């Protein structure tokens, strides 16, 4: 490296002088373009930006958490078990009315935190950190059963937190209704026909394909054709009960909440 050091030092290019009156021409440019010294935001202003930005980030985290929760609870993820067959339906079931505001809030919070001047890292880094924080944080919390605990708490303290109750009644309230997809717990099996109970509590008779065998107590994920009461299954998946029981518990909570808080007027 010493050789390179010497070569680099020896290669130092000489620099021509600036033209006469360079500073005068810059001053003229400043005059002509009417450039002014920009006002610096006051410290209190910056602090306000930082505080609002921080709370926007927390709000964004909550929204992301609900995105994940709603996505988990509406059963749309189950559609993906059949490959790309129901992908269009899956996309339409994404909670865009929550996703768009949460993305907007994340961006706003990143911009405000950057604008506050309290953080020295670049806006790109900050934006990425915000998205990771809100996205991963929200998803992680949703995966812990935290939301279910909140929901249970709301049911116990009915009427004490009306805004939270309202939110829970209007969000994540439905398990997917799809003409070619059904899911439910097997109650009885007779002559190749099974009676399943959906997370909504509805009973549907299923014609099971001859190649499949099901038992009472299993939770099935089915694709096929049929009506609201009779369904001819073409594909049958047997689900992991530990994973899918959350739908049944969730819908049961909802039914209870609807009855207690909304006098049974809520959408089933």
């Amino acid at each position, binding site marked *: 490296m010493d050789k390179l050091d010497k070569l680099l030092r020896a290669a130092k290019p000489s620099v021509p002088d600036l033209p006469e009156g360079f500073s005068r021409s*810059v001053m003229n440019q400043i005059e002509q373009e009417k450039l002014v*010294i920009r006002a*610096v935001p006051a410290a209190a202003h910056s602090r306000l930006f930082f505080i609002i930005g921080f709370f926007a980030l927390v709000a964004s985290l909550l929204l992301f958490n609900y995105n994940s929760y709603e996505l988990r609870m509406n059963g749309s993820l189950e559609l993906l078990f059949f490959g790309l067959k129901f992908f269009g339906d899956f996309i339409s079931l994404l909670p865009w009315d929550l996703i768009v505001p949460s993305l907007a809030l994340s961006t706003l919070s990143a911009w405000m935190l950057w604008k506050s001047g309290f953080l020295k890292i670049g806006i790109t880094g900050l934006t990425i950190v915000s998205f990771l924080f809100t996205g991963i944080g929200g998803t992680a919390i949703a995966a812990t059963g935290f939301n279910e605990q909140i929901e249970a708490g709301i049911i116990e303290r009915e009427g004490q937190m009306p805004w939270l109750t309202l939110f829970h009644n209007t969000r994540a309230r439905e398990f997917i209704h799809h003409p070619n997809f059904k899911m439910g717990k097997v109650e009885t099996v007779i002559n190749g026909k099974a009676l399943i109970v959906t997370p909504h509590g509805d009973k549907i008779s299923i014609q099971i394909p001859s190649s499949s065998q099901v038992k009472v107590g299993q939770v099935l994920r089915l694709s096929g054709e049929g009506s609201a009461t009779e369904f001819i299954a073409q594909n049958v998946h047997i689900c992991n009960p530990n994973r899918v029981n959350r739908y049944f518990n969730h819908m049961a909570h909802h039914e209870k909440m609807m009855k207690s808080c909304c006098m049974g007027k809520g959408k089933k």
Partner: protein
Amino acid sequence: MNKPSKSDAELVVSILAANKDDFAVLMERYQQRIFSYLYRFLYQNKEAALDVTQNVFSKVYENLGSFDTKFPMQSWIYRIAHNEAANYLRTISRRKESHMDDDQWSSIPGSDLSNGYEQEENRKLVLRALEKIDPKYREILVLSYFEEKSYKEIAEILDTSTNTVGTLIRRAKKQMEKTLNSMVGRADWFTQIIFRSFLIVFPTHFQSKLRS
């Protein structure tokens, strides 16, 4: 009667108090240094360096209100120059303009034959290699070797840590070595440079050797 010259901080206070003329004083203090840095960083392109220097001082003027007088003015202006140079390079790379043409290379100031033709050849080779490496590495080599800035000063200009500066310089030198190797076409570029120098200084001796 000579007035004692004002410090940078005093000049800033004065400019902010609407004494615009003091900005010319501040500019004259730094303009040649900034131009020199930009000239060396922007491929010895005088026109580009002049334009960017002008933009730098317009930006300095506009943002003077946010300058913290506790920090060195020089590093602050260099940082603005660094940002403006980066903007300039982005613009020309979008337009796919070449940085320098052959005439520009042959007219590099200081190409005086009496200084030693071989030295001049080496210098051109190094400058060509500098043009080929990543701009972020070229900038750090310009600041370190041509502008002779310390690690601390470079860290302030690039808004990074001194450790990062050390790492960047090490990587920049590695990339320079690779580029020089590929330009000369042999593994030991230093030997090549020495060989070329001898070829230029003693052409007849080597030509007779090659013939035999």
